[in-house]
């Protein structure tokens, strides 16, 4: 097992290099660079920059060098100093920009994940055990509604309801006075007050699909002979469900961890923009549009690393919970 993990970790290194290089190339593929975007922004407010200033800017940002040199310099900084470079647009080190956003993204993602699982798993099991009952039909209707309503629409409607009907402060994760404040207990409470709305919105659509998946998994397991064996042993229906079919029906969920982690960054962009959430996704989008290449590159590298780590974690977990994978 340890050997397996070590081997997987070793192979991550070349994959990370390959992906980061590709990402770097892709970011640079559109015509122009950050300076072009910058000039265009200034031109919009009637400021004109001459060729010399532009060339100076390029030199200052290192944009005049060939791409491969830029890439090597950037990678060298990461490896030796943990320095992801400067964001052109924000005039700040990339790492400083990313980490706070990542922490908030993580908090939001974990909160909505817990909400999703806590709602979806019991309902999925119920729907399977009471197949074609009124309850099952009701939850089926709910889950199809949840699946078919686009989350940005739900976000707009909920924002309207919360703001107009209940006078809640919606949008963002903090009230205005806490936005720039350092972390404190009051700020935490403020976060709690704001986080429920995005959690609901993010949870609804994933809950809906999770209910369907869990129901289907359970329906596969319920008629298996080992369930009848357990029943013939005299186990109560609830203990039996939890110990046998549910345990096995949960296995496929462990594999979803692999794409859960990268989703932290790139997922739910639309909702985050609509709700003005200070999470990673809108920043990533903005950096791509502005050709803020070190910031974008850092995000892509992070997504890639998280994908690899996520699939390693899910593989290890799967082997831990399923002896058939571990021992065969």
């Amino acid at each position: 097992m340890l050997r397996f993990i070590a081997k997987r970790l070793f192979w991550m290194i070349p994959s990370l290099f390959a992906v980061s290089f590709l990402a770097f190339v892709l970011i640079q593929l559109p015509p122009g660079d950050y300076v072009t975007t910058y000039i265009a922004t200034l031109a919009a407010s009637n400021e004109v920059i001459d060729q010399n200033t532009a060339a100076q800017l390029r030199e200052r940002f290192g944009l005049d060098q060939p791409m491969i040199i830029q890439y090597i310099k950037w990678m060298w900084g990461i490896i030796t100093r943990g320095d992801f470079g400067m964001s052109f647009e924000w005039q700040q080190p990339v790492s400083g920009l990313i980490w706070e956003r990542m922490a908030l993204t993580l908090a939001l993602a974990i909160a909505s994940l817990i909400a999703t699982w806590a709602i979806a798993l019991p309902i999925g099991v119920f729907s399977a055990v009471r197949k074609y009952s009124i309850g099952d039909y009701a939850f089926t209707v709910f889950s199809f509604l949840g699946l078919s309503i686009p989350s940005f629409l739900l976000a707009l409607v909920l924002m309207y309801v919360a703001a107009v009907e209940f006078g809640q402060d919606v949008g963002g994760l903090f009230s205005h006075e806490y936005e720039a404040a350092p972390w404190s207990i009051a700020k935490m409470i403020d976060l709690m007050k704001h986080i429920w709305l995005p959690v609901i919105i993010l949870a609804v659509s994933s809950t809906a699909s999770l209910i369907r998946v869990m129901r289907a998994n359970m329906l596969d397991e319920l008629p298996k002979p080992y369930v009848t064996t357990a029943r013939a042993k005299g186990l109560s229906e609830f203990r039996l469900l939890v110990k046998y079919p549910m345990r096995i029906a949960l296995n496929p969920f462990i594999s979803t961890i692999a794409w859960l982690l990268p989703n932290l960054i790139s997922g739910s962009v639309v909702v985050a923009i609509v709700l003005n959430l200070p999470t990673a996704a809108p920043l990533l989008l903005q950096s791509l549009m502005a050709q803020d290449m070190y910031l974008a590159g850092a995000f892509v590298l992070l997504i890639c690393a998280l994908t690899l780590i996520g699939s390693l974690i899910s593989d290890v977990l799967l082997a831990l919970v399923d002896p058939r994978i571990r021992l065969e």
Partner: protein
Amino acid sequence: MSDVLSIAPRKPLLEVRNLVTEFPLRKGVFTAVKDLSFSIEAGKTLCVVGESGSGKSVTARSILQIVDAPGRIASGSILLNQADGSSIDLARLNPRGKQIRDIRGRDIAMIFQEPMSSLSPVHTVGDQIMEALRLHMNMSKAAAREEAVNLLRQVEIPNPNQAVDRYAFQYSGGMRQRAMIAMALACKPKLLIADEPTTALDVTTQAEILDLIARLQKSTGMAVLFITHDMGVVAQIADNVLVMHHGVAKEYGTVEQIFHSPQDPYTKMLIGSVLKLEQKAEIRLKRPPLDTTAKPILEVRNLVQHFGPVKALNDVSISLLPGETLGIVGESGSGKTTMGRAIMRLYDPTGGEMLYRKADGNVIDLAKIKGEELKAARRELRMVFQDPFGSLNPRMTVAQVIGEPLLVNGIARGKELDERVCHLMEQVGLDPAGRERYPHAFSGGQRQRIGIARAITLKPRIIVADEATSALDVSVRFQVLDLLMRLQDELKLAYIFISHDIGVIRYMCDRVGVMYRGQLVEVGEAEKVCTAPDHPYTQALLSAIPRPDPRDRDRSRRFRYTETTPIKNGSSAR
């Protein structure tokens, strides 16, 4: 007062009266068990025997109220008489209630047919045994574990201390069924319900499991309700027999009565079908003897097939005459299926030759040819598979299934194809009017006929039938066997008939090869090998087959072959 009347007959342990179990369907109600009554006495064995769909499993599950949804007991009573003289009507209990749950596993335990899927794949065997103990006996974890080890020892699992922490997939089929028995016997039940517990096992393993159940029954005094379709097993273990057909009890009596003076025509048919397998088929006896001087149509020489480190076939040599039926018999894992597939060239053999004599007299080596030549040879060698459900594509009509070989080989199409298909269906005894229907509309026997029609479509010269009748009920089995023999005479086919069932081999084959661990240990005339074999392995195999006669229950005859057994008369396979 009542003490004086102690001569009054003891109440039976379980009395089932007028049981009706129904399955509500979208259109009406399907009654799986109709007005069934029987009783089981402590320490006795009742066999419920019947073919698929007879309602025997539903009967067993009704007793514990674990009939699969939406089945339910509609009426009748199931009285469980307790030691203190009181009795409970199980049919009246709530299927999810505490009362019936206390009886399940403690008073009445059950074992099932599929030893693999009946145990949880992700829990250790020990965990599943301990669960029953802790549930009903209030044992501590340590005490339950100790008891689980004892139980595993009792069912003769080697190294029970380690085995208790293993998973079901690390056990062999026979060991899994032993573990199931250990689990069922954990709380010393008064009644053990065994639903086809040996059907998925080899005959030697079956004999050992039957012995084990009999031994445990003797030592604990429990009653056994044994469900099976195998009359041989019934004859060996039953005290009383209940014959079921389509949910109705056809006959109910002592084993002696059922076997030696059956009253019901259905019972007679069941027993007749077993006795029929004791001798050669009539069609075979009527046929003129084979021309043994003819040149063999197929000659396998020193065939070797390895799958990684596994030696599935180890130096196998055998020949097949034109028009001959060659049986290949052996237990699971003996390599008999590999042999059939190797001849079809579904594998690339590791070594050896398979010389096939074409109709024009030319000899080709099936082990070496490829491309066009192999394609041509495969037209003349066809296969019939075991599973009549899995081997037909559910999304193709019967006409498409049968006609496909003609179509892909570009032999016939359109109207001509349709005519050929109709003719083929008539040949195998199917009504061509059903050719546009899908396989699910046909019964198991009919599906196997479709599989046979597909095999003879291209006018092959050799057919490899791999357990072609194993999944069929006895009454249908003979129809299919007789059809195969009739087709053989009509179409001048040579058969390689692979089976684990010596009875079927004796019924239909001219010669038999016995396989053991990838080797052919004995080849000879079917009659000789099936009655007086030379090789000790074949003798052991024969000794394990349950004799369909309750008067012949001598278990001491039975022995298990181990390779260290010295070969008595130095017989060789070839």
